[in-house]
């Protein structure tokens, strides 16, 4: 038993934050709802890597050119180079939204041009920045043709059921992220009748747990969505939006947010606003990155390795 095994949430969280802020890739496996640290990345890669491995990238904000990172396309390219350099080719990639900064056709084109260099299937969900074109139709035309509603869908891979949700369309005044009735009904129907032993991965842009209400970092009706997943033994929720790594384990559900490939945002409450955070040039790539997720079949275990672009 490691020192991280006890159920003191505060100290576990502190350890997590320390290790992620230090910029070290850390492998976490989840067994019985309790995370076990297996050490730094070298050790992690030496561990069993059979099963399904996929990647998460997020918040590429192609088109962003402000002081926090004048070249967001360049750092996306670095992230994809990192993907291509992985010793084990992932099965596919998910992108948890804010592909673009201003929903312009050229921004989507530029993002596609870089991301396609990974030669991986990519499953997208939209961020709020992907819905700011006047008619809010470019994202749906490009990525949502086979999806329901404004872009939600599910698929299966290696016995794992993946569900991509949209919580960035038609946001309500004073609210947080929002799924809406139609999508919730679809979700309830989508998981009904599935075996409780089937691992579930739920992914969406805005966190499906309240990270920080004052900054809108949560989803109004996420509790309703999660109530449909209570019977499942392994539920993993992957989000973006907050441009930093956060993790929480609650019962059978592991919540995790990925770094951005574009610019960092401040830790909750540490700045006047959640806007882009300007850091010294030599620090930027330590705060951007990708996430590698591994399922070990028949073990109900999950491992997430967050790798910064540098350091």
């Amino acid at each position: 038993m490691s020192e991280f095994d006890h159920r003191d949430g505060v100290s576990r969280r502190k350890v997590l934050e320390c290790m992620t802020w230090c910029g070290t890739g850390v492998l976490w496996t989840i067994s019985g709802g309790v995370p076990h640290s297996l050490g730094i990345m070298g050790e992690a890669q030496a561990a069993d890597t059979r099963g399904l491995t996929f990647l998460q990238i997020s918040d590429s904000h192609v088109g962003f050119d402000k002081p926090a990172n004048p070249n967001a396309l360049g750092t996306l390219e670095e992230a994809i180079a990192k993907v291509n350099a992985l010793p084990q080719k992932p099965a596919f990639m998910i992108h948890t939204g804010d592909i673009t900064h201003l929903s312009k056709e050229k921004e989507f084109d530029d993002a596609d041009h870089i991301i396609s260099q990974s030669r991986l299937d990519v499953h997208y969900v939209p961020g709020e920045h992907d819905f700011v074109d006047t008619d809010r139709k470019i994202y749906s035309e490009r990525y949502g043709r086979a999806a329901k509603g404004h872009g939600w869908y599910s698929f299966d891979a290696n016995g794992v059921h993946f569900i991509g949700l949209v919580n960035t369309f038609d946001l309500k005044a004073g609210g947080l992220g929002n799924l809406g009735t139609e999508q919730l009904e679809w979700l309830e129907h989508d998981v009904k009748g599935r075996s409780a032993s089937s691992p579930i991965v739920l992914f969406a842009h805005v966190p499906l747990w309240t990270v920080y209400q004052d900054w809108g970092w949560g989803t109004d009706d996420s509790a309703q969505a999660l109530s449909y997943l209570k019977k499942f033994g392994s539920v993993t929720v992957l989000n973006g939006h907050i441009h930093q790594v956060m993790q929480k384990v609650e019962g059978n559900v592991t919540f995790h947010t990925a770094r951005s490939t574009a610019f960092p945002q401040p830790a909750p409450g540490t700045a006047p606003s959640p806007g882009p955070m300007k850091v010294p040039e030599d620090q930027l790539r330590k705060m951007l990155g990708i996430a590698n997720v591994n399922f070990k079949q028949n073990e109900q275990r999950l491992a997430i390795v967050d790798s910064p672009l540098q350091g």
Partner: protein
Amino acid sequence: MLRPLIASSVLGATVGSVLAAGVLFARAEATPGTVFIDNFIFNPKAVTVKAGTTVTWTNRDDIVHGIASSNNAFKKSPAMDTDDTYSFTFTTPGTYQYFCYLHPQMVGSIVVEATTGSNATQ
């Protein structure tokens, strides 16, 4: 991400010389119909104007914002990047609640009062 309190010439040129006094400070309540976005806050949060006044929002954050009426009572803005402005002329008296459609925790209101005397439009 901290933006200077003294407005750039771009901003001054965009919103017009009428704001010359107001743009020196983040609190610009003195100029009716002017709302700045600073650090994800509409400033001032509540604005009262006479019917027929054009309200202009200016985004001074390093991130995109967008103005939308809470009940579709006025036309929403396009996406507003840094230093972009959006203007809407309110002709009908009433209270207009609005929010940022990218960051809905950002809310504000425009109270439009009827004009009095011969210039009344409503």
